[in-house]
């Protein structure tokens, strides 16, 4: 059973891949998960795609056969029953089959929804927490444990679940790193959590997926996953070499509308980001 399912899944993957143009196959991050969260989501994508494909194939075949066989030509010998009103039996069948398919999709959906909400089983009791604030139009990443802050780029340790706390000081955005997993909203006055993990060191692309104004397109950021020793080295290097972030600079980053290059700070002011919403720098 499990083996069959695996074969079927592989089949659906082949179909999906064959739909794609050649040469692009290395650049479909959603279909090439680089971490356990993206992996679980990809599993559901494959499974639901495969089941839907079966339905589509059945419909397409019936569709093709019927319009050919029952076309209105003088010599068509196929039966013609203009007063046929329906069939309880057939209608029961095609009510029941979608019910079964919905169940087959709903059960893993609910299970994964709950699984992804909870901290992963591999999470440390004291996981790396990163506070992610979207401003117009930049990403601010604060590392509370080490007290450092980066703008428009993110560095994380590989092979370790990282907890992101998402909020916004302006319009809503979403925090999306498709290689590592799905997105979650950054909303003002609210903090939402998201767990992500990179399986390997590497560089991934992140982006906001929710329109937030004229600079929205530029709300992308790079995610560098480093091995744990390299990550620790990076943290101490930042603490030593990067400047501290003053309160005035902090306000400018958060409340002045504009773009920003990548920035690095060894510390950030202790005021909370969302408490000063009135300070729009319009």
């Amino acid at each position, binding site marked *: 059973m499990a083996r069959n399912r695996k074969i079927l899944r592989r089949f659906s993957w082949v179909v999906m891949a064959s739909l794609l143009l050649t040469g*692009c196959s290395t*650049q*479909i*991050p*959603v*279909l090439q998960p680089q971490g356990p969260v993206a992996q679980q*989501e*990809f599993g559901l994508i494959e499974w*639901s795609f495969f089941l*839907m494909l079966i*339905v*589509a194939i059945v419909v397409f075949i019936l*569709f093709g056969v*019927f*319009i050919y066989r*029952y*076309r*209105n030509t003088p010599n068509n010998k*196929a039966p*013609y*029953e203009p007063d*046929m009103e*329906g*069939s309880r039996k057939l*209608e029961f069948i095609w*009510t029941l089959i*979608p019910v079964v398919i919905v169940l087959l*999709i*709903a059960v893993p*959906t609910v299970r994964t*929804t709950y699984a*992804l*909400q909870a901290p992963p089983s591999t999470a440390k009791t004291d996981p790396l927490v990163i506070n992610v604030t979207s401003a*117009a139009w930049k990403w601010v990443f604060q590392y509370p444990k080490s007290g450092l802050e980066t703008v428009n780029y993110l560095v994380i340790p590989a092979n370790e679940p990282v907890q992101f706390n998402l909020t916004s000081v*302006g*319009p*809503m955005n*979403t925090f999306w790193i498709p290689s590592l997993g*799905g997105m*979650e909203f950054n*909303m*003002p*006055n*609210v903090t*939402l*959590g998201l767990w992500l993990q990179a399986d390997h060191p590497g560089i991934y*692309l992140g982006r*906001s997926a929710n*329109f*937030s104004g*004229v600079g929205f*397109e530029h709300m992308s950021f790079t995610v560098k996953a480093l091995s744990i020793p390299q990550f620790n080295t990076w943290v101490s290097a930042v603490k030593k070499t990067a400047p501290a972030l003053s309160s*005035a*600079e902090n306000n400018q*980053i958060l409340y002045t*509308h*504009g773009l*920003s*290059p990548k920035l690095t700070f060894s510390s950030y002011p202790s005021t909370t980001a969302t408490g000063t*919403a009135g300070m729009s720098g319009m």
Partner: protein
Amino acid sequence: MLPRYFYNFSTFMSMFPHNYLIYGADVSIVGATALIIFVLTYFKKWKWLWDNWITTVDHKRIGIMYILAAFAMFFRGGTDGLLMRTQLALPNLHFLSAQHYDEIFTTHGTIMILFMAMPMLIGLINVAVPLQIGARDVAFPYLNAISFWTFFFGAMLFNISFVFGGSPDAGWTSYAPLSELQFDPGPGENYYLLGLQLAGIGTIATGVNFLVTILKMRAPGMTLMKMPQFTWATLITSIIIIFAFPVLTVALALLTIDRLAGAHFFTIAAGGMPMMWVNLFWIWGHPEVYIVILPAFGILSDVISTFSGKKIFGYTAMVVSLAAIAALSFTVWVHHFFTMGAGAAVNSFFGVSTMLIAIPTGVKIFNWLFTMYRGRIRFTTPMLWALAFIPTFVVGGMTGVMLAVAPADYQYHNSYFLVSHFHYVLIGGTVFGAFAGIYYWWPKMFGHKLNERLGRWHVGTFVLFFNMTFFPMYIVGLMGMTRRMYTYPSGLGWTALNLIETIGAFGQGASMMIMAVNIVRSIKFGERDVTGDIWDGRTLEWSTTSPAAEYNFSVLPQVTSVDEWWEEKKRGVVRPDHATFKPIHMPNNSGWPFLIGLSFFIAGFGLVFNWWLSAIVGALGIITFLFLRSFDYNTDHYIPVDEVKRVEAAAGR
């Protein structure tokens, strides 16, 4: 301080002047208006326009005006789409600036849903439903005219935004706090709020009107379960409208109060809740997409049954599934924002409730397929649209189920995968269905057919280029491209697919030109419908003349079965005896709806710019005209028997 790191975004944008496009549009608007005024004056058509169209309360004429307006909006929204596709054809283009692009995707979405899809379907409902139920007009003909003129002036108010002050730029979803004054100070967003509010008045009235019409005005003998499928779809759509649209009214009103009077319903500061806008918007927004799909389902049921020469398969199941979809449509709105942290239980509920919609929809698809089973399929243009609908809608529907898988949606949300999905269901469903209806009822509206050969070219090219435009979007979505990006970098593998999409979009534009040529050409050359039943139809609209007389039916039909006209033809048609004619009671034309709509427009335009004088003048106009109307006792007349005899005789009956 960090000034060296920042550069002013507006200077950045001003490097790419975009005003020549706006100027071009301004010139063309002024030119077109001048041309229309000239033609009307030169041919002395002002009185004709006023007497026959502007003051009309005839559901058929109101329906035609809705459809005309919808076509105009289709070309406006389509042009927006082509501008967007031009901008995205290649990476890093600067054909449009970010601001201009943002305005255009906002107007594209808003216009296509609210000022194209809805009026196109409401137009077809107006044309066909009273005829299908054997009625002489709708229940409230005067209100019907109010509906049209509030919609029309709402659409105009929305459309003049790019001429005066700039268009809305926060997306058709207009999420707060982006749409609040703090982040969006110009008048554009006010146009959105007031234009939609004004059109929404008309839509709610339409919902009430058709609910009452269908419940109270059916021909004798037509029980609910003997109504044509399109009438059923309209009845259920009316119920959705009545429940869903007031939510939009409230949401728009609250955001308007925020923006005009400084309240804080959805702001970040002072305890506002931006997410409440999202909830209200989608509590209306999800039923809204069923408001535009169910009438299309109804058209398809009638078209497939007619051109398969066969009764609809599983009539009861079709009705029950319409009702089930309508009920479920109110229980799924959170699936538009699974990623807003509602929690596992909420996401599970809304994910599964969304999947449940696949069940009644699947029943409908299979019942359509089996309506063709053991039928005799005539591949007319309306039928070709219906046939194009089935596979296209299945692709849209299956990706819809995929989107309902909440954890997977974390990867699809706001990506081009989603953009592709809703174009597959809205174009593959609503637009294909509406086109099926347009080609199907065209002879009933105008007395002649559209050309079948050009029609086939229209279907074929449109379906081809539609898939070329939207199928690649599924893939770029999985590649990480998100909606509403005004440009994109190279090197991500998106370029080739985007270029294909752009070529497809222009192909669709060309395909629509075939339809335009067809419409113009058919005025002169189209096959005349002399019998009133050019398709060998099944339902009552085909029993009367094409176009139907003002009073629709000289004698109200007696109904005994679902496919009443089909059965009558089998028994041998008996035309009503002229001796049985009685004077027919009909409503009078009225100019008040137009004037009330105009007053709303003046008031709305004033509110957009906080010009209180204009707002007050408009409001006084509304009150005055409502007051005058309530003392207008000359509201109806009888068509004398001789007149009915003359009209029927002229039609050869």
